[in-house]
């Protein structure tokens, strides 16, 4: 049964893991204790103390506040909204919808056409780090990437309900 040390998982997170270990991790049976070990790794990677209960996306975590509320919070401490909501609606956004703006990223003709599609860039309000990119036609509702069912997960899958 595979199992990995916190340090190996830290290397995985930081992208410093060597190619062979990575390939092994990808090929071998999955280690069932991974979730809680990674929570540790994530927790130690942030400066704030709220308890991470679910990593939601790069730089975004569902944390449990002292009052029990489940909040989506960024690496830099910005608190967006509750876990079931779409954090994007509480972020900063910049929308590229002209060829000139696409030219900063793609060679001309190798990007979408602004009439057909726009690029929405969602930033963390504190750090200005780019958290998600949406490429959708104008007028498309914001995509809700991931709405976790945290209670079922903890209660039925991990066998330890969150009170």
């Amino acid at each position, binding site marked *: *049964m595979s199992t990995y040390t916190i340090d190996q998982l830290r290397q995985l997170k930081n992208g410093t893991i060597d*190619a062979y270990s990575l390939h092994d991790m*990808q*090929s071998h*049976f999955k280690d069932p204790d991974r979730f809680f070990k990674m929570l540790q790794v994530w927790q130690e990677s942030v400066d704030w103390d709220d308890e991470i209960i679910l990593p939601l996306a790069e730089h975004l975590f569902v944390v449990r506040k002292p009052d029990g509320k489940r909040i989506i919070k960024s690496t830099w401490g910005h608190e967006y909204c509750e876990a079931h909501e779409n954090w994007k609606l509480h972020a900063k956004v910049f929308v590229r919808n002209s060829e000139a703006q696409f030219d900063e990223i793609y060679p001309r003709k190798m990007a979408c056409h602004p009439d057909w599609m726009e690029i929405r860039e969602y930033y963390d309000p504190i750090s200005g780090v780019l958290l998600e990119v949406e490429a959708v036609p104008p007028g498309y509702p914001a995509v809700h990437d991931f709405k976790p069912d945290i209670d079922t997960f903890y209660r039925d899958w991990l066998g330890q309900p969150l009170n």
Partner: protein
Amino acid sequence: MQKSYIMSMDAGGTMTDVFFVDRDGKFVVGKAQTTPDDESEGFAHSCADALKQWGKTPEQVFPEVITGIYSGTSMLNRLLERKGQNLGVIVTAGQEDYFRLERGIQTYLGYSYQDRLKVVTHRHNEPIVPRSQMTGVRGRIDCFGNEAIPLYENEVRDAVRKLIAAKVQGIVVNLLYSYANSAHEQRVREIALEEMAEAGVEIPTYLSSDLYPVMQDFARLNTVAVEAYAAEPSRGQFRRIADRVQNFGGDTQLRVMASHGGTISIDAKELARTLISGPIGGMVGARYIADKLGEKNIVCSDIGGTSFDLGLITDGEFTMKAQPDMARFMLKLPLIDIDSVGSGTGSYARVNPVSNRIEIGPDSAGSKVGMCNPQASETVPTLSDCNVLLGNLNPYNFLGGDVVLDPDAAYRGIKEHIADPLGLDPYEAAEGVLELFEDHLRNEVFARIFGKGYSPDDYILYGYGGGGPLHVCGYTKGLKFSDVIVPAWAAGFSAFGCACADFEYRIDRTVNAAFPASEIDPAGFEAAFEGYAKPVNAAWAELEKRVADEFDKSGIDSSQVEFKHYARVQYVGQLNDVEVLVDFDRVSGPEDMQQIIDRFEYAYAKAYSRAARSPELGYQTTNVVVTGTVPVEKPELPVEELAGETPPEEARKEGRKVFRGGQWLDADVFDMDKVRPGNRFRAVTILESPATTLVIPPGFEAYLDEHRLFHLKETK
């Protein structure tokens, strides 16, 4: 009578084995650490180690050595470690990214099936030539060998100058369709020579049309590049070893085992084919013995620590792969068709925690043996652990007792990782795992023979290698082979095989000439003669000359060479050709074409179902082949006088219990080297030698013949 010896060596990654055999087939094997920087040191030590068993020194023996064969992994390691020559490459303009794009297949060659499906594991290889030294020149030959775009000579000059400035040690030239028309490549060489003269440097150039004139530009480039990158530097190693041989007073020419099953001189033009020689020795040895005993169809099976290698000899001939892969490169080399079809004795056995199903391999502890090895720190049980636990392996006999294995560790591992999850008793679990393993091998063996259109009773199976004898009964059970043979020297069988190899060159060339089926279009068939015979005969003539030139380097006159002529044939448009040996050296009339048809149809119909015959498409000769062989001294098969059926007492070792069919049985144990020809062995018997163990389980019996070959028979 005058003694004479044959020497063969195998310089592996860690150990260098040297094998001496005398006229009577008596042999010794020596071992020493491999010395990568100068392999001749390890070679010398290994020689001394071997010969001291005869109470002799190299100086005493080498003057009587008539043949010396090298096989080794140094070339392969140089390639794997990317420690080859600094090369420049000239390709058709626009193709400079060959080694960056590779072919998708090279991102998962050698992977397990799971990983082949799992894209996140796929990785491109590190190029053996930096992109900055990949240069392109305009000019095109089309698929018919006609010039579509003339060569832009100014671009050739620029390219050569650039590579000279980059101080490359060799220039590889691989232009599209050069096998069909080499004019552009030839011209590139001329210009290169001019430019080098200009710059006052001498850099060897390697033309693909010169070295490997076969279709498929990328695999061809791989092969020529590997030749220049990894093979060329090996000549130095070979020469140093040859020098040692001379210093020991030997006057024999050192030859190298090559992928086509023959040995070639260390001065040969195409050395890259010696890259792959490991598993071939055994097959050459098996064919040699079979030939001596008048056997035609042989299955060769070799179980090592990591894999089960399987190869077929049919009608006395190997099957040849024209495009094998090695070290994650697609290559254009003739390679004896050997498949790694299963796990080895070091393969891990686990229970998948999700499905609760047993999985064997694909990964392996290899030389670390398993959890029973106190010197390794393995955490997952292996097949060897199962064998130790069940008494098949003697913990005190491993590598002749150098390592004492720990059955209790094996027990704990199997209990925790396999038995408990499955709710089985550890011994039953271990037996089950081995059954599963042997059953899988059994199916593979059957499938290979079946795929050739034969059935096992047409074949004799040879089992050798460290693990072969241990499992051979298991993977042959019920298949009704006409005989199952284990050489008493199973562990040293590859080395023996190398010593049995002919001095043989083989050169392939693409021709792509076709004619319609005589049965469908008689007129067209007749009419096609001229157009077919011309290119084929010309190619054969050219290849004969090249083979002769190679022998010439060893001072052998072509009159001594036995030439064989082959055509690789397929239905027009089909992509899988079949190698056909013909009994003429020139196509001199339609009747010769008819022979090619008949022999192709015979082989094809056997390999694929009748339904697949498609004569209406006509017959295309893709490649022609010439092999040249000169007879060389080979080991005699040992012939010893027969003793009685009962093994001598001095051969008997302490008996032990083995677990079979759910119960513990008493097994007689003998020393494999001490039992006598004529002896019979009934179940359960175990024969041990330092490097291998032969198990004769219930339902089998064995007989040791005068050649020290064990014959295994099912009793019920």
